[in-house]
């Protein structure tokens, strides 16, 4: 009887122990399967959401009015160019996204903070926070405010980098590459702007030429008669091959202490504020500067064509810094993408030029919108998907990173 009871107890204990172990093992398999389903769902959601953003112009959007070209907050979120179908994005809708790449800039004279899409000295794109579409608004409009987080990165496929090889006579090396490999034997069309500061206000001249990249995607451009140490110039390069078009730029200024900073003031009215750099970034040896603003469009043969600005106020001015010294306002004369070129001078020797794209594609600016997926450690899984898109015929790659904000991570 005692032996039977012991046998019974041992068998029950062994059975329970075995069951606990097997429940744990099966549970692990089931858990993995559930995770697989969740991740698979997230990947599908990521692909759908990316298409939703890229194949929908948002609202309001009709023949005469588009949210990307106005100050209004959209009632639905979408980045497609309303004049096209397929994966073609509006350069203006992208310009209204709050970029997370640059540090916001504060301009005391307007009392506003600006989203900073600037890509280096002289290549400014500053959009006021009260006119950009912020991340939380986009989440709400996409219907994922309580369930998902995302980051949308739209970057040019073709990267055109330019370096100075020799200052006098000026020689510049151009290197063209795609996301994968160099763009061998690409056609290169370039505009060379040189700034003249001989008059009361600066001006510029443009020359155009073409070249071909070699098998490594490189080309050497020579500018006989140009002294790269003394002259202010900008080189804008368009590289193109089989439908892929990329833009690169390089500039040299003889005065980077006092310059002008363009801020977008009003999308709907296409108004741009021109500010003195000392009022924005501070610096040393502030001085008044004269500037001359022009707006140019890029034509199909990759030349620049100036578009007259009807409102002459603010176009050619002398701007000073400090309290009581006003900023100036100009109006972009068109709804089409182009480049605002502002030449400035302190003296005949100290001059420079700044550029601002009107529509991000004009200078192939990248934009990163949303949240940084690496910044929050609680993200258990981030799904990504990519598409090739066109922004005003410039080739871009759009990459969406999506993660779930619901529940708790089950694996670290």
């Amino acid at each position, binding site marked *: 009887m005692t032996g039977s009871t012991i*046998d019974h107890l*041992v*068998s029950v204990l*062994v*059975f329970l122990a*075995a069951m606990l172990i*097997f429940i744990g*093992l*099966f549970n692990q*398999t089931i858990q993995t*399967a559930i995770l*697989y389903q969740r*991740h*698979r769902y*997230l*990947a599908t959601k990521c692909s759908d959401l990316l298409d939703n953003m890229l194949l929908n112009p948002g609202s309001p959007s009709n*023949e005469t009015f588009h949210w990307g070209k106005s100050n209004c907050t959209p009632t639905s979120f979408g980045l497609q160019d309303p004049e096209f179908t*397929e*994966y073609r994005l509006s350069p203006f809708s992208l310009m209204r996204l709050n970029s997370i790449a640059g540090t916001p800039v504060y301009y005391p004279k307007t009392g506003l903070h600006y989203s900073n899409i600037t890509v280096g000295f002289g290549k400014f794109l500053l959009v006021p926070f009260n006119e950009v579409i912020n991340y939380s608004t986009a989440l709400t409009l996409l219907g994922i405010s309580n369930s998902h987080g995302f980051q949308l990165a739209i970057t040019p*496929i*073709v990267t055109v980098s330019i370096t100075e090889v020799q200052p006098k006579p000026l020689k510049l090396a151009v290197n063209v*590459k*795609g*996301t*994968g*490999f*160099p*763009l*061998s*034997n*690409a056609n290169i069309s370039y505009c060379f702007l040189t700034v003249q500061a001989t008059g009361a206000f600066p001006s510029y001249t443009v020359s155009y030429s073409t070249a071909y990249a070699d098998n490594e995607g490189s080309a050497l451009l020579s500018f006989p008669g140009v002294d790269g140490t003394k002259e202010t110039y900008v080189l804008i390069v368009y590289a193109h*091959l*089989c*439908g*892929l078009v990329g833009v690169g730029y390089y500039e040299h200024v003889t005065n980077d202490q006092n310059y002008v900073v363009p801020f977008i003031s009003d999308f709907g009215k296409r108004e741009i504020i021109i500010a003195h750099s000392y009022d924005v970034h501070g610096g040393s040896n502030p001085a008044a500067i004269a500037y001359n603003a022009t707006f140019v*469009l890029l*034509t*199909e043969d990759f030349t620049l*064509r100036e*578009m*007259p600005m*009807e*409102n*002459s106020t603010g*176009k050619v001015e002398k701007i000073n810094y400090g309290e009581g010294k006003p900023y100036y306002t100009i109006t972009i*004369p*068109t*709804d*089409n993408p182009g480049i605002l070129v502002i030449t400035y001078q302190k003296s005949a020797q100290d001059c420079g030029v700044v550029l601002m794209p009107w529509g991000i594609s004009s200078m192939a600016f990248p934009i990163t919108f949303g949240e940084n997926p690496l910044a929050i450690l609680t993200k258990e*899984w981030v*799904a*990504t*998907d*990519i*598409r*090739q*898109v*066109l922004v005003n015929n410039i*080739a871009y*790659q759009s990459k969406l990173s999506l993660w779930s904000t619901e529940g708790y991570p089950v694996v670290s």
Partner: protein
Amino acid sequence: MMRTIEILLVIVIITGAFTIASFFAVLPSPRQVSPINLRRLALTTMQTLDVDYDLSETVFKPPNDPAWAKLQVALSACLPPNIVYNMTVYEVLLTQEKLYNPTASISNAESLGIASDAASYLAASSNVTFNVIPEKIGEHGGGGTLYILNCSDANGWWITGYTAQKLASDLKNLLSRYFQATIMVQNTSQLRQILNKTSLQDEFLQNAVVINTFGECVPIPREYCKGHELEGEGYQSGVDYPYTKYCYTLGQKTRQYNWTWVSIVGYPLYYVSNTEIFANDNNTYGIYGMQKVYQGGINAFLQGLDNQQYRYDETIVAAGISGLVYLSSEVSYCCNYYGIYPSPYQTSTRALSTSIINNYNLTVPLYILNQVGSQIPGAVYRHIFKSDTNITGSFLALGLTRTPDIRLTALGLLSYYQPRLYASEYTVAGTSRLVILQLGQVGGV
């Protein structure tokens, strides 16, 4: 003891079940769990490569053509480094045995990895894109030349938001297929040539259409300016707006060559522009390179058109219409026929007066926009001398408020000339290529 053995047997059975279950429950690789949508990536890659029809052109070339190497470079450059591809082009056949015949293939890897996906893209030959062929204006009666003023040395006015060059480009895209020849007049020197009855590209100059894309402004060649050889035909001293005389000359040329002169927006011929001659003159609104002609410009033009003696006349012949103006029924019908759809209602602040009809021997064969009272917001005016049946010059004027909608200009001209559209049979055989781009991922797991 027996129970313990039974339990051990149970454990063996459960272990077996777990092992078998684990054997079949193969965990997917992370790449399969959260894959990139390769199908969409392939499709968007092909769309990007075909933005300027480069892909469509290349796939029709023989496999040894250098264009294939360029396509491969572009394809490799635009895809991420861990993506491998195989692009195969098929000819579309009509035979029942075989629908597709492979013609060329490019690839950067021998295999496409463990997971791949493909997208298809149908490329049409540039030889067969349209299934409608328009009749060419002038193909039965001479003429048929379209001149579009695209002068780089002139500025426009009341074309806010555009440049004349942009409008010229759009007009060319809209209208060139309907004309025997489309000539972009690139500068005022070329304008001078055609005014002097010299063709630019061996085109017919007589019976041509001349579209002034500069809005209320018209380019003026330097020869017609003060101090130059044709000053007498373009400049008259002693009056407020001396270049009014140039508009008279334009009217005369329109009559002599039986042109159809087209004013796309606003008050016709209100300024003359030459950025070299008038470099220091502006229109009082900050646009340099032009001088005002004022309201006498259109009067002088019509005098020239009617072969009247020139007299300086600033009488106002255009005025605003309150409220909206609407497309005429004839033009509304043509919207569908030609597939051009401007807004059916517009605002007109420079509508010409009906008084010009009697004063200058004009008839109105086409109202583009309905007449309102004694104002005509948009119409084609035809000049025919009394006791004559021959047309001696025409004038299309759209007295609308800026910004111009050049679709109205295009529609007005097409409604006036009414070129017929011939449907042609469209077949996919031999004129289309099916492009399959298959993508795979390499590296990692």
